[in-house]
């Protein structure tokens, strides 16, 4: 691949006489050799070579597919139990990925099927909360950071109030209001309390960026506020926000599992790993798999997202290396 062979040459160092070197390096119009690299394409280049990123990306990909098409992974239903399969009965472990692979839970439901179907709740909550939090927190943080003054004062005080509420306890209070708690209600409750972190990061990042000369230059060349915000501030301020959001995604999944474990998260019949951990805690000695497997799933998922966030941060901020 020409791409790779070119890539082994370190950094496109442009000597003082930029024109000539481009003439030498480039093979005519738009040749692949002198291909310009932006921050993002540089980051992508680094990411592809980072084993941490590859592992976490593969894990996340599998989880996403599992969340969207659980039937691809198992033929068993996670909700129908046959008490003949109760875990105190003679265990009948089958081959890998068969319904009986990991055994059955107290109600004779396939543990494996429940693991597969549980991915949807976790992934949905994680992604939905992250999206909501990034949009809301990002917008609030950007406005506060860019305009400053009284707008910043008001938004920052609101932010302080929300940041002061304990995240898990707060969401329990919010969720307590609802009798039936769907995935979306849990996601909203988490987002309602979780946007402050992103808002703070965005605000700080925007304040740094808005002082950049190119923002002044854009202003001096007649760009309007909207254009300055979207074209000049946002693309340059978004990197730390993406990093924090990716790492936080794992946190939201863990939060959902914790709430479900406590019985105040997603309510049945939706399958959730947190609930399964809770179900398994009473039979830890007799049937450890009932508890261990969903716990492992939560850990692996959270780990995958945090690893991804780390990899993205390293790629976007070369100084950390």
């Amino acid at each position, binding site marked *: 691949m020409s791409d790779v062979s070119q890539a082994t040459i370190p950094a496109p160092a442009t000597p003082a006489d930029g024109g000539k070197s481009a003439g030498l390096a480039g093979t005519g119009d738009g040749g692949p050799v002198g291909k310009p690299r932006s921050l993002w394409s540089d980051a992508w280049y680094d990411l592809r070579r980072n084993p941490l990123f590859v592992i976490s990306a593969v894990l996340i990909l599998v989880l996403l597919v599992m969340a969207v098409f659980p039937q691809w992974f198992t033929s068993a239903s996670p909700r129908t139990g046959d008490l003949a399969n109760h875990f105190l009965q003679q265990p009948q472990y089958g081959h890998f990925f068969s319904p009986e692979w990991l055994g059955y839970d107290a109600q004779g439901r396939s543990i494996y099927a429940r693991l597969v179907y549980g991915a949807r709740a976790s992934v949905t909550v994680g992604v939905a909360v992250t999206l909501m939090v990034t949009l809301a927190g990002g917008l609030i943080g950007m406005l506060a950071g860019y305009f400053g003054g009284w707008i910043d004062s008001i938004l920052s005080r609101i932010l302080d109030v929300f940041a002061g509420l304990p995240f898990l306890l707060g969401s329990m209070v919010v969720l307590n209001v609802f009798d039936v708690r769907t995935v979306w209600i849990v996601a909203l409750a988490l987002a309602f309390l979780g946007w402050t972190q992103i808002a703070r990061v965005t605000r700080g990042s925007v304040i740094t960026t808005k002082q950049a000369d*190119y923002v002044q230059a854009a202003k001096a060349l007649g760009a309007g506020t909207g254009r300055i915000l979207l074209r000049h501030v946002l693309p340059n301020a978004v990197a730390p926000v993406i990093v924090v959001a990716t790492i936080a995604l794992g946190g939201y999944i863990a939060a959902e599992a914790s709430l479900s474990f406590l019985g105040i998260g997603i309510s049945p019949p939706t399958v959730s790993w947190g609930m399964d951990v809770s179900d398994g805690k009473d039979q830890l000695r007799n049937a450890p798999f009932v508890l261990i497997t969903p716990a492992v799933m939560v850990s692996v998922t959270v780990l995958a997202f945090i690893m991804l966030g780390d990899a993205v941060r390293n790629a976007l901020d070369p100084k950390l290396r």
Partner: protein
Amino acid sequence: MTTIDKPAAGPRPSGGADGSPLLEVRDLHVEFHTRDGVAKAVNGVNYAVSAGETLAVLGESGSGKSVTAQAVMGILDMPPGRIPKGEILFRGQDLLKMSGEERRKIRGARMAMIFQDALSSLNPVFTVGYQLGEMYRVHQGLSRKAAKAKAVELMDRVRIPAAKQRVNDYPHQFSGGMRQRIMIAMALALEPDLIIADEPTTALDVTVQAQVMDLLADLQREYNMGLILITHDLGVVADVADKIAVMYAGRIVETAPVHELYKRPAHPYTRGLLDSIPRLDQKGQELYAIKGLPPNLTRIPSGCAFNPRCPKARDVCRTDIPPLLQVTERDGTQLDGRRSACHFWEETIHG
């Protein structure tokens, strides 16, 4: 986005229809409200630039030269900045009385600015071609493709080699001189009437400085633009400027046609600046330096602001602010365009 009616191409009449200058700054005051008090950055500056004319504004850091320019462009951060007094007439219209939107439309299209550090003045996440094209897309509503073609044209005009190959490069892939050319291209894009260049060559090395200044001068002639050149480098000014305004502590202390200022400065501060240029024929001697530091703008000395550092200061300098007066020959003939704000300008120029 808003499209702006482009002024007719080709050589434009000098300044407003009635022959007034292109830009006239009248008694401009700018102050910054800080925790330490009010910093008076600009205290009654007057200057004028006509089309095709180059005015160099000279002064140390903190003399208010950049703040004046920012006030003219309308990119001053307000607050903390405030303009309590003054007029900025652009083609006879007072910019300070215009709405923000009206001013925004003038920026870029009718007047543009070139900044000191071209690397940090270009957005690192977009290609150079995109940023140049942005001028056309925003102000003239051109399509992406047409804007990019225009960008290549512009890069050619500021003599960037292999413009076509380089249009999709990012700012960090260019050398300092090339980047400054791109900034110049961006400022020129819509063929503005006035360009303000804020220390355009300070961040460049000496060999490139001359090239960039030449380019700027050529383009200015070609488009018959007014140019305000802000600098602290007396060497840069000499070849390019028509007239010079020397600023100190937010005031203009001397104005003169460029060569006369070098020959016979009429203000001790200007003399000090000229004397502090290293000269080959004075090798081995101690280099002259104006003693002391520029004044703190929250506590500008009474009288002439330069008096604590002035070798010729007398009692009157500590009490009375010297007005910017016409400078004359010994026999009383007026020297065109020469003014000095020194109580003892006669001694300074003739002594």
